[in-house]
């Protein structure tokens, strides 16, 4: 009997430990609500009817991806503060409600439930983890709440959700330019190293399809489990497969680890990552980061003076003033741009009504953001459809075209 009680208590405690964790932002609760809910609040009145516009935020604030999540939330808070100083959305003060989805799809569903059913949000800035956007998107869209996901996987924008949008990169739009670059370089063999999360898998699959269509052989495709730090087995296989270039499809925190291990075991060639090679990864991996390239709309910086794009520099200075440091993850840019597009849509709609705002998103065009000019008029819910390619040389970011002009590829061969 005692053993049965002990077993039950063990399961309960482990369940509580898995469900526990602090919420971020202005709300001390985290996603402890029921995981599933079939309720639809499509007809519920907008919370802003009372003079307050409720903006929800779901980001990983604990766990492996806490850094990107924290940067994203900071950017949203900064945007909210600045917009409120200007009078809010249509005269309504923005109230930010933030939860920690822990980077877990299961937790993201609970968070979505709270944002929809308890907080009755007017709009939501979704997670930078695509798996979390994918798991909570159905509920949010069914409730008629506009949501801007900040993940880069193509999958969640393929679900046909009318109220889900993206104001940051879709990896599917960037990877063709990566493959084109490889074809131009005459590369015929590529090995892949990918995580097992949605964005990593989607990035890897898209790259494989594009590469094969372009006549590039994928010599091997290796993966790792989130939390692992040693990839020596995978690296050995990749190097011995005869690959000329490596394609790395992982989260930011994994980048310096794979960079160091690739260089340690003797691969000093060109590597492409599926998105930005973060500045903190550059600091950790140091010289091992050289010859890592990526197609991405923006860069992270260690000093605003390094940035020669006025709108980005302005954001960096404001962020630094508010938080005493620069964002180390591009998720800050993604989240900021999402709020700016939402603001533009509300201005175009002339109201905070959710349905009107969602329709107005499709009219946003020519809006200059940190990522470049947003254009939602193509009707796919995406604001960005192209990006630059950058590469790291001497531990600095430069444009890939400039690196080619300087003979970088010839020197590497």
């Amino acid at each position: 009997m005692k053993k049965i009680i002990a077993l039950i208590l063990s399961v309960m405690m482990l369940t509580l430990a898995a469900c526990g964790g602090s919420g971020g932002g202005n709300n001390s609760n985290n996603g402890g609500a029921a995981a599933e809910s079939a309720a639809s609040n499509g007809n519920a009145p907008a919370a802003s009817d009372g003079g307050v516009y409720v903006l929800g935020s779901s980001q990983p604030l604990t766990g492996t991806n806490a850094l990107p999540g924290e940067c994203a939330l900071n950017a949203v808070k900064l945007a909210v503060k600045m917009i409120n100083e200007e009078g809010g959305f249509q005269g309504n003060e923005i109230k930010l409600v933030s939860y920690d989805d822990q980077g877990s799809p299961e937790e993201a569903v609970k968070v979505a439930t709270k944002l929809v059913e308890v907080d009755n949000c007017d709009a939501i800035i979704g997670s930078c983890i695509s798996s979390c956007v994918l798991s909570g998107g159905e509920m949010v869209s069914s409730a008629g709440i506009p949501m801007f996901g900040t993940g880069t996987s193509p999958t969640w924008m393929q679900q046909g959700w009318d109220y889900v949008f993206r104001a940051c990169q879709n990896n599917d739009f960037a990877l063709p330019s990566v493959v084109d670059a490889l074809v131009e370089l005459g590369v015929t063999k590529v090995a892949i190293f990918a995580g097992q999360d949605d964005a990593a898998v989607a990035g890897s699959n898209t790259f494989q399809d594009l590469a094969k269509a372009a006549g590039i052989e994928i010599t091997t495709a290796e993966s790792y489990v989130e939390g692992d730090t040693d990839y020596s087995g995978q690296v050995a296989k990749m190097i011995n497969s005869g690959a000329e270039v490596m394609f790395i499809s992982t989260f930011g925190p994994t980048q310096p680890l794979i960079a160091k291990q690739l260089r340690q075991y003797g691969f000093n060639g060109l590597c492409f990552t599926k998105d930005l090679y973060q500045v903190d990864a550059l600091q950790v991996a140091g010289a091992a980061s050289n010859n890592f390239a990526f197609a991405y709309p923006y860069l992270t910086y260690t000093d605003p003076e390094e940035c020669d794009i006025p709108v980005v520099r302005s954001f960096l200075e404001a962020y630094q003033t508010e938080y005493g440091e620069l964002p180390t993850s591009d998720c800050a840019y993604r989240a900021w741009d999402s709020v700016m597009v939402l603001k533009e849509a509300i201005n175009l709609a002339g109201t905070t009504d959710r349905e009107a705002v969602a329709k107005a998103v499709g009219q946003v065009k020519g809006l200059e953001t940190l990522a470049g000019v947003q254009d939602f008029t193509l009707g796919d819910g995406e604001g960005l459809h192209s990006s630059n390619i950058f590469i790291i040389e001497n531990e600095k970011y430069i444009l890939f075209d400039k690196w080619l002009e300087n003979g970088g590829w010839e020197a590497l061969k």
Partner: protein
Amino acid sequence: MLIQVLVSGSVLGCVYGLIALGYSLIYKASGMMNFAQGDVLTLGAFLGYTFFSMLGFPFFLAFILTLIIAFAFGLGIERTVFRQLKAKNVLPIYIVLATIAVSYILQNACQAIWTTKMLSFPRIFPIDSLKVFGVAIQTESIFCVAVSILCMAGLHFFMKHSRFGTAMRASAMDSKAAQACGINTSLATGVTWAIAAGLAAMAGMLLGPIYGVFITLGSTIGRKGFAGAVMGGYGNMYGAMVGGVLLGLIETLTSSYLSSTYKDLIAYGMLLLFLFVRPTGIFNEKAITE
């Protein structure tokens, strides 16, 4: 490729072995399991970074300070958590659950103090890497292997041949009988937990230059250290190292020659196999009783 895989697998295994030593030590000397070892590793990495990189202390001084703090932490956990629960005569599983809670608390505390950034731990040695059987291995990794082997041998002799080590084992075997013999069981148990914490913190400081420092550094390594300890014979110092190395080799061989996707499935499958076929582990340590 085989040599590269064997060498890197052995290096990885020694890291697991260092953590496994902590698990085995605590079990050997107090009969308990402590699932916070992985996060104590993370704490050690952050402390080492703070002393060595932020405050600019010489590495040896930073190392000693980290060990002292980890030692005090282990002692503190034993006094405030383990001993209090044991005094209430709770079931052993409750103490295990308490260590899991400590693990989460520690992880979040590290996040609160050092934030979520991945920190760059400076190199300890001026030479970046050395060739071992023709394979380039980071110098800090080789140092980690050497320290692991020294700790294994040192702990074995300490537990078997030193007076205090014998006292620690006696306390674990039968606390009341040990007290009757004049052994300070309270001190023995406390020192056990302190040494285990010191081992984990030491591993953290050695891994920092290899992997960087971040809040989940020790999470997975901690679990695998436990698996290595079981495979080697839970409670056996040599078994901890051998089990760790075996696990490291299985992982790297699997990901190199079979599938990296199922690396953990195969590695933990081996653990289950051991539990079914040889629960006392490679070194036949009779830790598994009714």
